[in-house]
């Protein structure tokens, strides 16, 4: 390292504090010098960082790293390996170094002697007599030294990193006179017989005693400072260094057993769920965890005696034990059944074994959608469909089932539970069957009147609301997982350590994964090299031109598609009216109905392939950008077309016969769109994957198979889901259709994948992409559908002659009517009317609530921003302190060398 500024002369007679200050400022200046590295800005900020951050984050003053300490010495691991802090191995100046780094503790060893250079010199022999060889581990100076050592916050935690840490494979027979090992020696007899004998041989130098005490001390220390934090409130950054706490709270060198009981005591203070979570996250082996459980059980029963089934004296206690035991058995039986209840477990394992996490994310998304639909289907089924089926309307279904209805959704289905028009507007279990709008009050109202219109409205509302909550929750979860505060680009490290997909088991896929990682690493390396040499002007212009052309083309096609669909809608309108006038055959009429969905699905499929072609021409640098661009274009097309259709439906230009509700017709339209979408997905799977593979294998004799296009497939799922949500109000059984479709899709896609596809060659950030997908599902898809439905409920006039809301101004009016009825019938629930009047009707409340939500969001964003800044500062601080330490060590080294020369 180049040293531009001369370090301060340490032999000067300045006080220790000023010395430190200088060292700091010196390292700051040096930080500015190192600015060519990424941590360059620290030169400007490092000075204010120190005072501000330490109290805030509970950092110990001047954290120093033990490794850099070794590094500076060039001794690397020789010191810790060889065991204890013994003379000969320990540099003689070491204690003064600690003294320097921990001013508060210096007094223990070094009497402050300002004005005298000797405060930096090695103190008299008695002060570090413990350093001399031959001294046993029990030397009185031992604990002080360890204390000082410990107060150098090592960034290595969770293990005994003390100099006495037993080397790997150390046996007890070697018995290095070390601190932690002596610990173990003491602890060994206390280990219960059930524990494995190898408890005496901690694997890889990590003793479980250390781990236990680390977790125990996580609370014990902090309790002194604050009132009583739970084990879990401790964030990672504030996690203490193990050894420090171990030393402070275990002066008597507790045995392993003691530590275990201490930890058990800590765990007992937590709530049961927290406790089991804590136990889950302890990096201990099962035998140890079992011992902990036993300890917990013992401590829970006050006398320390576990009630033995045989020893319990009273029959009551015996009975209780028996029941507890029985319950437990039952619980474990249920748990054993759980894997059977997880659908597609084996299928998902198969997929992930061959194709890895990326393709798996598609199927998991499909599963999520399926859950959403099953959920809303259940609600609708129970509260609307089943009850309506139990009280069928008088009008019978005349049309026979022909089979073609499955495609068109018309004909036989028109007057069935599938559509809005079938549902009645009466109180179902009321014999007089008075309509809601009819002013005739029922003479003898049933005990629990079931008002169909209200049930219809509320069930749809509740299913939407619940879906919204589920969606937001899953979005929050996946955002939490994939976007973390303070994340920055560390591509290569992440690639090396996290790229391997442990799920992949098939030999060919493993090989492919190796190749993928290899190419990715090469690409990353090449990217780093090429970052310095930018493209020439000509190349750049060419690229910009290509990009521009591609975007113009894609936007143009989107616009063209929308215009085409618009004209088709107009045309079909005219044609349908003509046909109705002519009264042609039903086949012909229903065939015409299919033209529109067919066109839209065809456009969707063709355009997505066109965009894939465009992407090939564009040659984007990163595959992630490519995927985002493809998603953007496809989504734009689909949403614009859907928006146009919604506008069309709202403007009530659906051609319907007089006896049918327009709502039913919209429902039928949506049904057709869904079915057509499914048909086209099937065709696409067959032609895009099966035929492609056959041609490429049989004709071209190439080994290459098509890849599974995750982005396109997921967008198709989102599109289908949007259709379902749009149609829930018009066709309450549409979720059932969607469930069926998703089930079929799962098996078809899986079969096609297994038969035709190869593992993806592009890197794919599965979790980030699934976040994007769930966001897309929430934002344009769900929100759009919700707005559409709300608009219809609040301001569109429902059909006059059929459906649950006939004769009302708007659908929402049914709530008003009902509220008035309630008020009249039972005056003691006026609060319901009040809520309806002041909280729902009054816009102020809504504005207020949304205002509060916005303010909360803003606050959270600000907090995250602040955290990000703190993280940056802390990183700089760590880097600075590492360099401080190196400098200090170098300085001390030179001083001692001088001293030795003089001596």
């Amino acid at each position, binding site marked *: 390292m180049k040293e531009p500024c001369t370090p301060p002369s340490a032999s000067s007679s300045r006080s220790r504090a000023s010395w430190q200050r200088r060292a700091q400022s010196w390292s700051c200046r040096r930080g500015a010098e190192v600015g060519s590295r990424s941590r360059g800005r620290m030169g400007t900020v490092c000075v204010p960082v120190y005072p501000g951050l330490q109290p805030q984050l509970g950092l110990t003053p001047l954290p120093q790293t033990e*490794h850099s300490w070794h*590094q500076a010495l060039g001794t690397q691991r020789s010191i810790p390996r060889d065991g204890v802090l013994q003379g000969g191995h320990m540099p003689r100046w070491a204690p003064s170094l600690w003294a320097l780094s921990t001013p508060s503790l210096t007094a223990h060893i070094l009497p402050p002697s300002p004005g005298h250079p000797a405060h930096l010199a090695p103190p008299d022999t008695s002060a570090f007599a413990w350093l001399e060889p031959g001294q046993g581990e029990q030397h009185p100076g031992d604990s002080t030294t360890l204390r000082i050592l410990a107060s150098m916050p090592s*960034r290595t935690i*969770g*293990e005994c*990193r003390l100099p006495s840490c037993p080397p*790997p494979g150390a046996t007890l027979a070697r018995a290095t006179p070390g601190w932690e090992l002596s610990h173990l020696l003491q602890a060994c007899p206390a280990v219960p017989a*059930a524990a*494995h004998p*190898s408890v005496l*041989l901690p*694997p890889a*130098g990590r003793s479980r005693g250390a781990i236990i005490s680390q977790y125990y001390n996580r609370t014990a220390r902090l309790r002194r400072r604050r009132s009583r934090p739970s084990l879990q409130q401790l964030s*990672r950054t504030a996690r203490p260094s193990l050894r420090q706490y171990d030393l402070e709270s275990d002066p008597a060198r507790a045995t392993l057993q003691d530590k275990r009981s201490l930890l058990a005591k800590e765990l007992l203070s937590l709530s049961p769920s927290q406790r089991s979570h804590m*136990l889950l996250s*302890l*990096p201990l*082996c*099962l*035998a140890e*965890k079992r011992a902990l*459980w*036993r300890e917990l059980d013992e401590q829970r029963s006050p006398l320390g005696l576990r009630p033995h089934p045989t020893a319990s004296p009273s029959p009551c206690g015996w009975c209780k034990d028996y029941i507890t*035991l029985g319950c437990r*058995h039952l619980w*474990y039986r249920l*748990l*054993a059944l*759980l*894997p059977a209840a997880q659908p597609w477990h084996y299928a998902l394992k198969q997929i992930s*074994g061959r194709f890895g*996490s990326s393709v798996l994310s598609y199927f998991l998304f499909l599963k999520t959608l399926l859950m959403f639909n099953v959920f809303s289907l259940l609600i609708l089924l129970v509260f609307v469909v089943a009850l309506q089926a139990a009280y069928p309307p008088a009008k019978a279904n005349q049309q026979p089932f022909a089979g073609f209805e499955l495609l068109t959704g018309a004909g036989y289905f028109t007057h069935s539970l599938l559509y809005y028009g079938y549902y009645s507007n009466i109180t179902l279990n009321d014999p007089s069957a008075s309509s809601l709008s009819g002013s005739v009050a029922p003479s003898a109202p049933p005990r629990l009147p079931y008002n169909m219109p209200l049930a219809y409205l509320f069930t749809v509302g509740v299913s939407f609301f619940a879906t919204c909550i589920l969606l937001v929750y899953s979005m929050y979860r996946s955002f939490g997982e*994939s976007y*973390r505060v*303070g*994340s920055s680009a560390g591509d*290569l*490290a*992440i690639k*090396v*350590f*996290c*790229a*391997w*997909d*442990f799920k992949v*088991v*098939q*030999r060919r896929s*493993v090989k492919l994964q*190796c190749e993928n990682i*290899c190419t990715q*690493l090469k690409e990353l*390396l090449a990217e*780093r090299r090429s970052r310095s040499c930018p493209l020439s002007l000509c190349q750049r212009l060419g690229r910009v031109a290509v990009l521009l052309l591609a975007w113009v083309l894609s936007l143009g096609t989107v616009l063209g598609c929308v215009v085409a669909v618009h004209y088709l809608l107009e045309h079909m309108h005219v044609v349908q009216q003509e046909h109705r006038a002519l009264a042609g055959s039903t086949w012909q009429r229903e065939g015409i109905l299919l033209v529109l969905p067919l066109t839209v699905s065809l456009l969707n499929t063709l355009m997505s392939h066109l965009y894939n072609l465009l992407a090939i021409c564009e040659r984007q640098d990163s595959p992630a950008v490519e995927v985002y661009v493809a998603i953007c274009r496809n989504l734009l097309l689909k949403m614009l077309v859907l928006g146009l259709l919604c506008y069309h439906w709202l403007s009530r230009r659906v051609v319907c016969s007089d006896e049918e509700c327009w709502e039913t017709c919209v429902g039928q339209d949506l049904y057709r769109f869904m079915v057509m979408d499914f048909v086209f997905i099937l065709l696409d799977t067959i032609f895009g994957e099966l035929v492609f593979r056959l041609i490429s294998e049989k004709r071209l004799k190439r080994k290459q198979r098509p890849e599974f296009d995750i982005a396109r497939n997921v967008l198709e799922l989102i599109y289908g889901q949007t259709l379902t949500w749009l149609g829930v109000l018009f066709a309450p059984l549409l979720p059932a259709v969607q469930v069926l479709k998703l089930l079929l899709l799962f098996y078809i896609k899986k079969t096609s994948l297994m038969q035709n596809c190869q593992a993806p060659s592009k890197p794919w*950030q*599965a979790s980030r992409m699934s976040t994007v997908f769930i966001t897309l599902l929430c934002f344009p898809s769900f929100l759009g559908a919700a707005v559409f439905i709300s608009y219809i409920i609040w301001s569109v006039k429902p059909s006059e002659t059929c459906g649950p809301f006939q004769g009302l101004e708007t659908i929402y009016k049914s709530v008003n009517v009902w509220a008035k009825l309630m008020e009249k019938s039972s005056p003691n629930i006026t609060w319901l009317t009040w809520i309806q009047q002041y909280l729902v009707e009054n816009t102020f409340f809504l504005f207020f609530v949304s205002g509060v939500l916005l303010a909360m969001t803003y606050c959270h964003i600000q907090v995250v921003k602040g955290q990000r800044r703190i993280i940056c500062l802390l990183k700089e601080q*760590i*880097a600075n302190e*590492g360099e401080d330490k190196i400098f200090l060590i170098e300085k001390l080294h030179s001083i001692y060398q001088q001293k030795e020369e003089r001596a």
Partner: protein
Amino acid sequence: MGNKQTIFTPEQLDAYQVQNKLNGLFYRYRDLAPQLVPLDYTDKPDVTLPYELIGSMPELKDNPFRQRIAEVFSEDGDGNMTLDDFLDMFSVLSEMAPRDLKAYYAFKIYDFNNDDYICKSDLEKTVNKLTRNELTPEEVRLVCEKVIYEADLDNDGKLSLEDFQHMIIRAPDFLSTFHIRI
């Protein structure tokens, strides 16, 4: 199904975190060597399966890190596993294990020489295993340097557990990739 309860005592069951997969895992373990593993585990028999059997499981067979995984999770450090170790391994590799726990064991897996640091030689081994020795030594060296440069926060030239955990937080895919479906 009938002898399900007799495999473990309830007290034993309490300690396991993968309770719902426990029976499945036990039978997987037993299938590796039916003649060695008794059906009844209530009296805590001392049975250890050698690494050769563990490593031949389809879930591990082609994994380049299979030996390391077995070594890390076995008590003796040689890859020979008792039932406890086996359950331990698959509970850490299941989706229920928290991120910190996974990171801890991943660190141990990548720490080939067991010195509690991931140093250059560990990294080289990791990279070579990941790429099946396809990269040239020069490229491997470059990758290792960059990785250490990126992830090493305190400039000591090697990665400690803390460095590793810090890096893992930023890797959203780690939870889904460090997971073996059983």
